[in-house]
Structure formats: C-alpha cells, structure tokens
C-alpha cells in the first residue's frame, strides 16, 4: 500500500468516524468541532483526488469562515448560565432506520454499477488549478458572476435579519 493510499483511507476513516459520532454527540459545541474535523479530512481527500484548489478552498471557507460563524451562533443562543448547550434527541429509532436504509440502498446501487474511467485519466488532472482559473474566467464566467451576486445578496440579507432594528416609535428625533 502506497503512502497516498494510506493517507486516503486514513482521512476517509477520520471523516466517517466523526460523521458517525455526530449522530450520538449531545453537546452542540463538540458537534461543531466534529463537523470541522470531518470537513478538514474531506479537504485532505480532495487534495489526494487531484482537486487541490478545491481542498484549499474547503480549508479556507470552512475552517476560517463557517466554524467562526457557527461558534458565534452557539454562544449567542445558549442561555447565560455557564452550562454547555446540550440537545435532546427525537425520533431516534426512526431516524436511525431511515439513515441506515438509505445508506444500504446507496451502497447497493453503487455496487451494482460499473464506473469506467476515461483513458489516460491521471495525466490530464495535473494542471487542474491552472485550468480552473482559466475556466472560471472563460467558460464558467456566467455561473461565477451569479454565484458572486448570490453571495452578496445572502450576506446582506443575513446582516439585515440578524440586526436589531429599531422600531419607528423610538426613532422620532432622527
């Protein structure tokens, strides 16, 4: 087993274990940490699957952005009593049943289908960063601009929703 294969299965095992542990965990803060571990090991898998740009994006966006936002959300929605935020579980057995049945169906379908790679697959993926860069500015320009606009709209909307708006009656002098 080569080093790359060992690293791939190591990252895969870490991602799978943290995702399964998220089902049983009760404290929301530990849940956020587990999700970040899962997403960072997915970034390692992306890097090993010739998607380096995606791996770096994943690390920057999730470890730098979403983790901070989620931890702020946890801190702002827990009652100020010093106790950690603990969640209950509902529909436990039906949820487990639905999840495991869905997983079984997916594994069955994956095993029944033969995925045939195209020819000389390894060589073309080497310059993927360069090709993504030129592709974003040429072929995928319209979706790129639409994604930027969507991000702008969503962030302005989130700021407006989360802001404390003053009512009109308090604002007479202004």
């Amino acid at each position, binding site marked *: 087993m080569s080093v790359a294969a060992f690293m791939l299965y190591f990252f895969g095992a870490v991602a799978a274990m943290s995702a399964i542990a*998220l089902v049983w965990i009760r404290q929301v803060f530990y849940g956020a940490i587990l999700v970040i571990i899962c997403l960072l090991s997915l970034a390692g898998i992306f890097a090993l*699957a010739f998607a380096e740009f*995606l791996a770096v994006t994943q690390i920057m966006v999730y470890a730098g952005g979403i983790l901070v936002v989620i931890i*702020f959300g946890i801190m702002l929605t827990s009652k100020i009593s010093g106790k950690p935020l603990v969640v209950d*579980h*509902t529909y436990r057995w039906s949820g487990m049943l*639905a999840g495991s049945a869905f997983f079984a169906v997916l594994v069955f379908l994956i095993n029944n289908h033969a995925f045939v790679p195209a020819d000389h697959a390894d060589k073309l993926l080497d310059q993927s960063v360069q090709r993504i860069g030129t592709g974003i500015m040429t072929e995928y320009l319209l979706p790129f601009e639409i*994604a930027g606009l969507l991000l702008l709209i969503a962030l302005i909307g989130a700021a407006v929703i989360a802001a404390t708006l003053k009512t009109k009656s308090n604002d007479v002098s202004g």
Partner: protein
Amino acid sequence: MFPVEHFLILGALLFSAGLVVIITKRNAIMVLLGIELLLNASNLNLVAFNLLHPSRLDGQVFSLFVIVVAVCEAAVGLAIVLRIYRQYQTSIPDQVSELKD
C-alpha cells in the same frame, strides 16, 4: 488512481449520517451542521466523478459553486436562528409552532 467506489461509499455514509442528524437533533444549529454534511457528501461525489472524466473540470468547478451556496445557507440560516432565539427565547425548532396552532 483510487477506485471511485470507495469515494462514493464514503459520500453515501456522510449523506446518511447528515440525514440522521437532521432528523434526530432537537436544535437548529445541529440541523445546520447536518445540512453541511449533506452538501459535503455531494461535493465528494462530484470530485470522484471528476476523477473518471478528467478532460473536463465540470465536477470541481461545480463543487466550488456548491461551497458558495453552502456559505450562503450557513449565514442566512444562523441569522434566522438568532432572530428566532431573540423572538421566542428558544433554538428548538419544534417549539416554534405559532403557525401550526
């Protein structure tokens, strides 16, 4: 080159775990974490299918857009959670049932 089936099975496992988290947890932030797991499972599948057809980079570029949409969803979702917490003093989705009553 690794077999694509292993990526797909890991993606299926992450998707199922995210589904169970969404169904069972009684906290809106945990539900958002489960949605993040679902989106990343789909990203893993897109990267794995890009391994099969490397002459085009559609899979990787599409997963970049999926990451952008995930960021929008997390920002707006957490803003709504904060707003609901300020209004109802709870972050349990089952207790916000004013429309149902």
